[in-house]
């Protein structure tokens, strides 16, 4: 028995997690969990946690859960970033050991892309797409909840790695042979592959769900060319997800087989082909970067039109260019491994195809500018992010074109120049877009505005911090500093630039603190949104009260033109004023179910068991998954009728019923 205990301790808490800072976090976590349990019990909230959140299938609540998860992960990824910058601030620093540095940058990248940006985007999809198209929910509400719980449990699995067993350490791209069992025997990479497989399953389902939702669930009259741009971007993103995630799933599963079952798909020995992993990963990876940015193109199109009080300029061209980006983004993936040596033919082809993408992107930039042209612009926080996005993203795109020049990329590749490029597009495009959307749609999601003055503070700190952090990194790259190095000697001329970069990171850290303060302050004291239309919006979500009632639309609206709500207002109509009691009928709503949550937990158990090759635990989790699926398959009682009287009462209490 003692040998069993020592085996457990040695496996779960190897020396790599017995560091003072991690032990401190362990203690904090234990107290945190105890605190939460005590709080829920004292205030008697277990029941409502279960009924209102864990078992919900309502897209609006799922959106809130995605948002909370994304903000938590932004915090975790941000702390990792600050640790990286602390380590690099001085030559020869010993802030942390090299092995821990590897774990920190791997965790930072993986969390930011898969567990921060993706769920944040899904939060937006869930919060507004059904409202924008005049629907009562997504096409498959139960699947939607399942997507969420698979994502959440994948994220949880990834996040326990650093306290139990040790974090992955092969970079967010997890190339072999770094991930090979021979070179990397700990459980870290198993965590990585399993967490991403589980979360990826959820993501694929989200893609399917929103593809079907946007194609099939639009209100009568909303033809494709009358859809808001954000809905277009949702549709295109979902299609990208549908085709991009299978190669990732295959690559991850094959790597996992190499590690768990002794196959040799990507090993160096036995005829494995490590380069094939690189090919498969970027077959996913490049579409992924567009999955990360296209939704925000949609956000910016909504934000710029609303705050310029003008219709989006060149809507048809916007649609064409977004579709062009979708197709082109499947044909550029080799630009991530030009240096693999596939030969001049291959490299020239993919260099050119990469540069081509800049054209439709440029079209969109011009259209946003022309939308603002001559408009009456309101300088809200959301609009500030929009204005910051344009130059930031243009510079990021321009350095991308530089990277696409193949001979030059042999110099730039895997240097800090590359790091600066992709942060330029990912922060300038994705993060600025997400924050813009947060300020824009917050009243719709929560019923109050975020304080604008605090918002402007957070904005300027983010914006300045961003440029202070990443401008020096371009020059560091040109001076030969490579990515993923743990330390550097004095005398290379890298020191000053690194110090500036670290200062910038601290400014961004301050911005995050202000953002959180802004959110907490506004939840308590923020200006209530009583009209449901605080920005004088253009699309249908602003026709509804904030926060939106469970059934969304008491009566499904009929759409006649683009910017449907704006047009209604121009004609002096509203959804509220015209609603008569006899117009309201019973509506069919999906019913809450514990299955998605339970299937997520089962996947977590299975993933945890597989990580440590504890097969009995893995099998228990697997059986849980099968039972959930079976139960769900024979559960015919999956919807309920919301009575017309209930809807009438709700609408009347909101002052939206005539007579």
């Amino acid at each position: 028995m003692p040998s069993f205990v020592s085996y457990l301790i040695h496996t779960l808490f190897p020396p790599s997690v017995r560091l003072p800072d991690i032990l401190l976090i362990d203690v904090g976590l234990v107290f945190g969990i105890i605190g939460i349990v005590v709080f829920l019990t004292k205030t008697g909230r277990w029941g409502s946690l279960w009924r209102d959140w864990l078992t919900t299938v309502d897209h609006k609540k799922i959106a809130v859960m995605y948002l909370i998860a994304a903000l938590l992960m932004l915090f975790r990824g941000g702390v990792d970033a600050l640790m990286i910058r602390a380590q690099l601030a001085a030559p020869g620093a010993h802030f942390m050991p090299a092995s821990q540095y590897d774990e920190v940058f791997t965790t930072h990248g993986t969390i930011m892309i898969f567990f921060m940006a993706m769920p944040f985007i899904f939060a937006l999809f869930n919060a507004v797409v059904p409202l924008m198209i005049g629907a009562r929910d997504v096409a498959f509400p139960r699947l939607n909840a399942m997507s969420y719980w698979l994502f959440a449990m994948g994220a949880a699995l990834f996040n326990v790695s650093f306290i139990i067993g040790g974090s992955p350490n092969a970079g967010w791209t997890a190339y072999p042979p770094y991930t090979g069992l021979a070179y990397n025997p700990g459980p870290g990479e198993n965590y990585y592959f399993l967490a991403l497989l589980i979360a990826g399953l959820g993501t694929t389902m989200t893609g399917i769900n929103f593809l079907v939702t946007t194609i099939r669930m639009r209100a009568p009259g909303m033809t494709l060319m009358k859809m808001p741009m954000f809905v277009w971007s949702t549709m295109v993103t979902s299609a990208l997800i549908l085709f991009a995630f299978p190669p990732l799933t295959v690559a991850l599963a094959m790597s996992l087989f190499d590690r768990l079952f002794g196959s040799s798909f990507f090993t160096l020995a036995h005829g494995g082909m490590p380069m094939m992993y690189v090919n498969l990963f970027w077959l996913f990876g490049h579409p992924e970067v567009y999955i990360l940015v296209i939704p925000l193109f949609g956000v910016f199109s909504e934000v710029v039109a609303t705050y310029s009080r003008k219709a989006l300029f060149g809507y048809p061209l916007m649609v064409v260019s977004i579709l062009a980006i979708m197709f082109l983004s499947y044909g550029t993936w080799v630009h991530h491994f030009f240096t693999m040596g596939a030969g001049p033919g291959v490299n020239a082809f993919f260099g050119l195809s990469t540069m081509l993408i800049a054209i439709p992107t440029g079209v969109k930039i011009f259209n946003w500018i022309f939308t603002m042209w001559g408009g009456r612009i309101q300088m809200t926080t959301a609009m500030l992010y929009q204005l910051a996005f344009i130059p930031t993203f243009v510079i990021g795109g321009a350095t991308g074109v530089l990277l696409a020049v193949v001979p030059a990329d042999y110099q730039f590749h895997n240097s800090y120049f590359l790091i600066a490029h992709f942060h330029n597009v990912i922060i300038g495009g994705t993060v600025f877009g997400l924050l813009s959307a947060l300020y824009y749609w917050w009243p719709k999601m929560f019923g109050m505005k975020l304080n604008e003055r605090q918002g402007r503070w957070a904005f300027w700190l983010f914006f300045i911090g961003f440029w202070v952090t990443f401008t020096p990194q371009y020059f560091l790259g040109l001076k030969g500093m490579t990515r993923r190095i743990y330390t550097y000697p004095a005398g290379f001329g890298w020191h000053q630039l690194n110090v500036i970069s670290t200062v910038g990171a601290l400014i961004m850290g301050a911005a995050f603190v202000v953002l959180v303060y802004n959110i907490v302050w506004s939840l308590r004291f923020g200006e209530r949104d009583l009209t449901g239309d605080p920005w004088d919006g253009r699309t249908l979500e602003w026709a509804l009260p904030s926060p939106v009632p469970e059934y969304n639309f008491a009566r499904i609206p009929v759409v006649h033109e683009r910017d449907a709500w704006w047009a209604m207002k121009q004609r002096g109509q509203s959804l509220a004023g015209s609603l008569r009691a006899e117009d309201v009928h019973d509506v069919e709503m999906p019913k809450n179910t514990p299955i998605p949550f339970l299937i997520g937990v089962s996947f977590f158990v299975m993933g945890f068991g597989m990580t440590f090759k504890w097969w009995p635990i893995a099998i228990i989790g697997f059986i849980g998954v099968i039972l959930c699926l079976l139960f769900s398959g024979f559960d015919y009682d999956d919807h309920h009728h919301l009575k017309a009287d209930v809807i009438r009462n709700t609408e009347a209490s909101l002052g939206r019923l005539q007579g």
Partner: protein
Amino acid sequence: MSEHGNTALTIKEAYEQDNDKGLKFLRPHFAEEKFPAVQIAGYIGSLVLTFAAYFLVMNHVLPPAALLAIILALAVFQAGLQLGVFMHLKESRGLAWQLIPLYLVFLIALGMVGMSIWIMLFKSGVS
């Protein structure tokens, strides 16, 4: 979804018919469904095809070229099987609903596979 029969609809007609049903088209139609014999057979068939490929690879019964050809054939056959049995290829509202996505799938799949082969050929060219 058999209520729509086999009448071929254009995308627009199919859309108009189904629109404004709220969530109604999600309502299960179990009464109309028979025992899913086809699906179960398709499932077992898929497993058999997978294990056949696995067996061939693990036991080295064939020379490499023939092996590659056979597992490729098994894969294509399985893809067809799954499209037919699980992707409701025959239960269409109209041809247009099926063909456009299908063309897209072929375009992207062939593009990915074809270009990957092109890219990975360098192994033979470069030492």
